């Protein structure tokens, strides 16, 4: 066969060059006037609302910087961070934070160094500069505001510096590193997770730290990340099972999903604490913390399965046919063609699920575990800090808000990177 003469049979460019659309930029004042003060009635409502918002903001700020006594947070930072984790073993947690910071910076830099195949990415886009500025501000302000000792402040500066430095190094020189090394980076995350488990729980020659001593942010993040990571494969398998042609598989998947979705999480948590001991042979039942972790995992898995199922039904059947007709086996076709598309579609719903799971971990305090909320309740019960509820709850809310915002931002960045129709920006 002869090659097509260039240009003869090819489609003409989709859009011929055309004049730019007329500029519709308006001034800020114009936008404000149109949106808030378009008519007399609008103006009245807007003015009232603005006054109300200003008044409450002023009230909150006056309380936060005048009346509020933040000593309750400053004195208990360690308790809020890690619970009753033994002090002489806390170097293990510091090591974990250092490793996470280094790997985060490395991955972040590499993501910028290797933009998508169809784009030329900027090395330091505006968002990244903003994020670095924010990190710098937090590193400078937060340790001081929490009245940490000077050595601890220096530690946080160093960790932040490490993250930014890794981001910088990987961003500038990542492209020249050997590909074999680069392939290890995504693999190092699950490895780091396993290592983190060992560092937290003990093993490999380090002394055991019983789960009943984990607490605060450590326990909350540990429970949430464990449930998120393990519920993902469960969700995918159950979603595939629910769409399977094999009746037994299909019906057991439906049964699992409907059983979990039919009961409130708090019921399942209590059930898990009480009944697992009878269900599993003596000694096999995990301890209280791990029982709760598994209940959270299976709970999240059922909801995730529904999100993944929606994603699977959104992939046109022609995709599987095309993959199969190219000779891919069913597992290969699922892995390479169907699941990548289905999971991308399911991503927003799945992240919504993860965010609500993170917040659901506060229910652990009701079964007597010392997660963030549980720790807060013990602190507030201390006669020394009576009546400091507002300070504690506000801190908790901001902490959760930060974690959820990070999840949300990360997932939106991932969506944009994976969206094949997103126009290059």
């Amino acid at each position, binding site marked *: *066969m*002869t*090659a*097509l003469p*260039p240009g003869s*049979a*090819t*489609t003409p460019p*989709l859009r011929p060059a055309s004049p730019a659309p007329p500029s519709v930029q308006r001034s800020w004042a114009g936008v404000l006037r149109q949106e808030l003060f378009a008519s007399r009635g609008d103006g009245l409502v807007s003015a009232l609302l603005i006054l109300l918002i200003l008044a409450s903001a002023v009230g909150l700020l006056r309380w936060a910087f005048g009346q509020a006594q933040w000593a309750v947070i400053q004195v208990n930072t360690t308790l809020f961070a890690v619970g009753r984790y033994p002090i002489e073993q806390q170097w293990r947690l510091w090591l974990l934070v250092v490793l996470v910071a280094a790997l985060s910076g490395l991955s972040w830099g590499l993501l910028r160094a290797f933009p998508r*195949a*169809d784009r030329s990415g900027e090395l330091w886009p505006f968002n990244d500069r903003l994020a670095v500025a924010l990190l710098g501000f937090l590193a400078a302000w937060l340790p001081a505001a929490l009245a940490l000792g000077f050595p601890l402040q220096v530690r946080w500066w160093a960790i932040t510096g490490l993250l930014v430095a890794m981001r910088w190094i990987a961003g500038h020189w990542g492209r020249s590193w050997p590909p074999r090394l680069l392939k290890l980076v995504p693999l190092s995350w699950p490895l780091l997770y396993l290592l983190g488990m060992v560092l937290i729980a003990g093993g490999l020659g380090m002394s055991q730290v019983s789960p009943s001593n984990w607490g605060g942010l450590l326990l909350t993040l540990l429970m949430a990340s464990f449930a998120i990571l393990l519920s993902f494969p469960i969700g995918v398998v159950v979603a595939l099972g629910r769409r399977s042609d094999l009746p037994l598989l299909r019906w057991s998947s439906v049964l699992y999903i409907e059983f979990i979705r039919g009961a409130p999480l708090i019921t399942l948590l209590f059930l898990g604490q009480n009944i697992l001991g009878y269900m599993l042979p003596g000694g096999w039942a995990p301890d209280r913390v791990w029982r709760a972790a598994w209940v959270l995992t299976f709970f999240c898995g059922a909801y995730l399965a529904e999100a993944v199922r929606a994603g699977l039904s959104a992939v*046109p059947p*022609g*995709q599987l*046919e*095309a*993959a*199969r*007709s*190219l*000779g*891919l*086996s069913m597992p*290969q076709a699922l892995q*390479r*063609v169907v699941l*990548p*598309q289905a999971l*991308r579609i399911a991503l927003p719903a799945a992240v919504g699920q993860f965010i609500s799971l993170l917040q659901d971990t506060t229910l652990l305090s009701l079964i007597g575990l010392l997660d963030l909320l549980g720790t807060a309740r013990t602190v507030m019960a201390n006669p020394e800090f009576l009546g400091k509820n507002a300070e504690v709850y506000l801190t908790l809310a901001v902490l959760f808000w930060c974690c959820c915002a990070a999840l949300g931002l990360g997932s939106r960045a991932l969506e944009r990177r*994976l969206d*094949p*129709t997103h126009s290059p920006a």
Partner: protein
Amino acid sequence: MPSTQPMIEACGVQKWYPNGFHALRGVDLSVSKGEVVVIMGPSGSGKSTFIRTFNALEEFQEGSISVDGIVLSNDLRNIDAIRCDTGMVFQQFNLFPHLTVLENLSLAPVVVRKRRRSEVEAQAMALLERVGIAEQARKYPGQLSGGQQQRVAIARSLCMEPRILLFDEPTSALDPEMVGEVLEVMRNLAADGMTMVVVTHEMGFAREVAHRVVLMSEGQIVEEAPPETFFTNPQHERSRQFLAQIL
């Protein structure tokens, strides 16, 4: 010119859909190596169903089909072997939207044939050159026009080095101005001696490229003839009706 060595042999193929619809009522067809067979017929006549049985995208209940000497049975290894040797081009292109054009082409050779990626990509670039869109290799399918997408789909099939290409209405979903570029690629393939079974309504293509035209109606083959006979002097009343409607 086609040789006499048969590439596809279908004998008495019968198919019922699960809802009881009798889609294929004993269809016989033999396609020789290097032959281009065009299948025409009104919608619902079973022509798409028929060519989809050749690579086991559709099951059939009675009769037998062998492709390149391999008998289609329920044995999964046979099905995989036939699918590797049989390329298929779909009406809706069915490109993988999450992969670039180049990755669309190299996926199956790397995953199924276990070939080296660098070697496959060189071959893929040569194929894209042949269908005239090498400069789009790093784009995603959603960024291409319909005609370009269908040419990528043809190149994707060719990358597995198939011995037979099946086309299921390859130009029906295209804007009229893009039909020509796809037919041009198919014409070149036929000139290179590729064995092709094409379900299409493109009269010009059938007249010019096909060695044989087959008319299907209600799950049966009504007429089978060289294009000049089929278009000028059809033997059956049903064929005359069909031609009268589309000409």
